[in-house]
């Protein structure tokens, strides 16, 4: 194919769900119950999937014929508007990563759409009886539009636009069961927590815009490298904050957006609550696609990250993956357990990004999308089958009632645990991706010397772009068990050199001093690799194995083909597609990022052996981890819950900490609510001693303050920081509206009083400046 065929196909794929959304909004109710759903499946995701397959097949052809690089370089942009003097473009970013992500999103989403038709058939109309069914698919379609748009955006600006749209859809879908109070609370919590992250994103975006003078992803990377080499622009600034340079702040700011969307450590609070949404939504948005958008964003702006910023990324990822895995151990709600496992896996991806394991992290993203979507759909099947029972202790023994679900779930457990036979090519997706992240982390922590990159690359990376890429190709580290190794993709795809010759010259110097990774990060990641199999096996065992613990639930349990067929498809994907198909694409995409700081950690020539060696012993340490985890889990849960109960008693406070999720919500409560109470107390002192002087004038104000503090004190147990902030805002709003008494004379009094105070201030400050003025007056004779 030639011209801009791929871009046009991708753009059509983005637009189809948008059209579907509008049609469903206006005509959905008339389509009726299964009609609207099937329309959503076909129009909303079927078309994009077909287009994605066409593009994928074509693209693999291009890779083999070596034209992909040119196509990437000539990707289509059209001028949208001038922002100030900076032209903003709208366009499609066409490279292997886009193609891979597009296909992954379309495929997973399609399967989940199909699942939803089944899931919603018995589910949705319990509220109000109208509109709800079609509305669900309308939202899903809108989400599909936003997510696909996010993936193809070539400009950071439009990426942000779709980013916000995705957040909006998430908000709508979490709050889908709005009649349940907790669902709307969770929706608001998610929305506001994400805004906190987006605030950082916006700062990063502004910095990119003002300092790099572009919003295009590729241009920004080029400018960034140029500015570093010349010491101009963002690198000329002496501004620092927390010891970070402006360039680092830009990177951290952009990452803040990812922290919100991917629910990283301090902003993770919304994701477990988001499980209040329908299960297909949890699978699609809160496990497979949207939350991974953060990782995708980091991958896209990787080239704008300084080593300090990446260290921050790694630290956040490391904290998230460990802490959340531990919480998952004690969860009893099946969806919450999966949610925490998602958080932990997202932490792995972010951690991998921070380490420089660019390929491995994205690869983990894809494999995770498949098996986590599958796991969530299984849980949806279970929940639907068990009559909306979500508590695992009340399940058990379901394997007889829902065999397909049971065994697909088991495949997911194996995949997430990284099951595979060490030293061979046999294993599931998670086995390879997670191990690769750990191997890179090991090298960064133990065998990395500051300036390493400089040393090696100075000698090797300074060829032409083409040569360096080929050379890199030849020595690019591949896992021992890489199934695509040697199948020919590697050599041919180098043709375009990805227009990165500019990077080759400057990259040697930009990140000459990449620091070592602290060792604790590596060990925490290893530790978590042992925890993961444990809690996953625990969940599976409690749900499907053993004896039924609740007869009522057990009797109700059933499964329907419309829902388990997508499961089977995803299970196959877990085995095959994720590895066979996506790994080479991501590998190829990595060349676009090789001028970045630390992809070299995996691609740098001299580290190949180091990483290979690391993996040689890691693969027994980590590759076997799943067996250890499984054995412990089975040992504890084999005979029901009694043993677990005993351990819980023994663990005591530790268990409480985990169940309370490290008291995160409570700490937020404490800081905000107690802070407000303190303010209220101070205000009350003010009441007592000063306000009384203006008794009547201040009466309304005093009353207001009292109510204000009253609200805060009475609702001491408000749910989390979000309500605290919201209430504070609302109360501030009340305070601001105090003068709006409805009495026009008071309006005048207030306005005049403010004006008088301003005049007095002007006079006081003006007098100082007027000392020498004798007279003034300009006369026109």
């Amino acid at each position: 194919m030639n011209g801009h065929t791929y871009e046009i196909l991708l753009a059509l794929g983005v637009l189809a769900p948008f059209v579907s959304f509008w049609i469903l909004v206006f005509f959905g109710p008339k389509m009726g119950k299964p009609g609207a759903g099937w329309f959503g499946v076909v129009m909303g995701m079927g078309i994009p999937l077909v287009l994605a397959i066409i593009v994928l097949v074509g693209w693999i052809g291009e890779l083999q014929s070596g034209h992909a690089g040119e196509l990437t370089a000539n990707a289509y942009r059209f001028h949208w508007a001038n922002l100030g003097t900076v032209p903003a473009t709208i366009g499609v970013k066409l490279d292997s990563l886009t193609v891979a992500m597009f296909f992954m999103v379309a495929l997973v989403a399609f399967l989940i759409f199909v699942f939803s038709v089944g899931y919603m058939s018995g589910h949705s109309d319990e509220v109000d009886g109208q509109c709800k069914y079609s509305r669900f698919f309308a939202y899903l379609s809108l989400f599909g539009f936003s997510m696909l748009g996010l993936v193809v955006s070539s400009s950071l600006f439009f990426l942000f636009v779709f980013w916000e749209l995705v957040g909006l859809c998430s908000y709508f879908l979490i709050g889908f069961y709005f009649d349940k109070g907790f669902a709307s609370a969770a929706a608001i919590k998610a929305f506001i927590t994400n805004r906190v992250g987006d605030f950082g994103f916006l700062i990063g975006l502004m910095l990119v815009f003002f300092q790099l003078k572009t919003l295009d992803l590729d241009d920004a990377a080029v400018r960034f490298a140029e500015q570093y080499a010349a010491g101009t622009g963002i690198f000329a600034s002496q501004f620092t904050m927390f010891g970070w340079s402006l360039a680092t702040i830009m990177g951290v700011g952009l990452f803040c957006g990812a922290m919100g969307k991917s629910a990283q450590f301090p902003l993770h609070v919304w994701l477990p609550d988001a499980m209040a949404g329908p299960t297909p939504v949890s699978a699609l948005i809160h496990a497979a696609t949207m939350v991974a958008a953060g990782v995708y964003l980091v991958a896209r702006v990787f080239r704008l990250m300084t080593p300090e910023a990446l260290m921050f990324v790694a630290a956040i990822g490391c904290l998230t993956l460990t802490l959340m895995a531990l919480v998952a151990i004690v969860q009893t709600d099946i969806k919450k357990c999966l949610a925490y496992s998602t958080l932990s896996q997202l932490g792995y991806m972010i951690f991998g990004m921070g380490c420089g394991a660019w390929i491995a992290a994205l690869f983990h993203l894809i494999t995770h999308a498949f098996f986590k979507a599958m796991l969530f759909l299984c849980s949806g099947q279970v929940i639907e089958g068990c009559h909306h029972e979500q508590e695992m202790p009340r399940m058990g023994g379901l394997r007889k009632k829902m065999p397909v679900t049971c065994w697909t779930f088991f495949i997911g457990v194996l995949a997430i645990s990284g099951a595979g036979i060490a030293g061979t090519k046999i294993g599931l997706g998670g086995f390879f991706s997670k191990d690769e992240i750990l191997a890179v982390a090991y090298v960064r922590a133990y065998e990395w010397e500051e300036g390493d990159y400089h040393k090696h690359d100075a000698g090797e990376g300074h060829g032409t772009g083409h040569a360096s890429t080929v050379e890199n190709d030849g020595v690019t580290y591949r896992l021992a068990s890489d199934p695509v190794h040697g199948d020919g993709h590697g050599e041919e795809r180098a043709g375009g050199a990805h227009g990165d010759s500019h990077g080759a010259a400057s990259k040697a110097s930009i990140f000459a001093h990449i620091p070592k990774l602290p060792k604790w990060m590596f060990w925490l990641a290893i530790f978590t690799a042992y925890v993961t199999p444990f809690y996953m096996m625990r969940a599976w065992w409690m749900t499907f194995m053993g004896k039924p613990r609740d007869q009522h639930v057990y009797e109700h349990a059933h499964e329907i083909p419309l829902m388990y067929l997508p499961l089977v498809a995803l299970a196959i994907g877990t085995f095959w597609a994720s590895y066979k198909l996506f790994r080479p694409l991501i590998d190829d995409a990595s060349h676009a990022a090789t001028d970045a700081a630390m992809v070299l950690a995996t691609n740098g020539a001299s580290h190949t052996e180091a990483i290979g060696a690391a993996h040689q012993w890691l693969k027994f340490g980590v590759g076997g981890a799943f067996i250890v985890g499984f054995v412990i889990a089975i040992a504890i849960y084999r005979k029901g819950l009694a043993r677990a109960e005993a351990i819980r008693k023994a663990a005591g406070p530790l268990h409480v900490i985990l169940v309370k999720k490290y008291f995160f919500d409570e700490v937020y409560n404490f800081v905000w609510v107690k802070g407000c109470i303190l303010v209220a107390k101070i205000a009350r002192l003010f009441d007592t001693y000063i306000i009384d002087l203006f008794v009547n004038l201040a009466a309304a104000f005093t009353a207001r303050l009292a109510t204000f503090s009253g609200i805060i004190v009475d609702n001491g147990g408000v749910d989390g920081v979000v309500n605290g902030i919201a209430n504070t805002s609302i109360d501030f709003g009340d305070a601001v509206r105090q003068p709006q008494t409805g009495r026009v004379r008071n309006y005048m009094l207030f306005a005049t009083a403010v004006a008088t105070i301003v005049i007095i201030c002007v006079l006081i400050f003006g007098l100082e400046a007027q000392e020498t003025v004798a007279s003034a007056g300009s006369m026109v004779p």
Partner: protein
Amino acid sequence: MLPDDFLTYLTIGLTHYLVVGAVLFVTGLFTMMTKRNAIGILIGVELVLNSAGVNLVAFDRYMAPGRVDGQIMTLFVIVIAAAEAAIAVGICINLYKNLATVDVDSARKLQG
């Protein structure tokens, strides 16, 4: 018995008129802010407008004699005052028809 600069007391200057204007201004404001009768508030507005008139004419006399801009401005102020009064009385009558009172404090349904 008389102070030495007694004559300066007798020299009426610009400042004198401005101070009269200022007093009119604040009495007008005070009237507007304290009267509950809508017509009373209007009377306050007239006072404030008159203070502007006094200022303008005084400035015209002392700062720009021969130019008539100030006086013309005063004329327009008077016209505007008349127009405002007409509209205001209309609005007051309308209020009275609806509320059966001209107490502005009773018109407080719109608030918050």
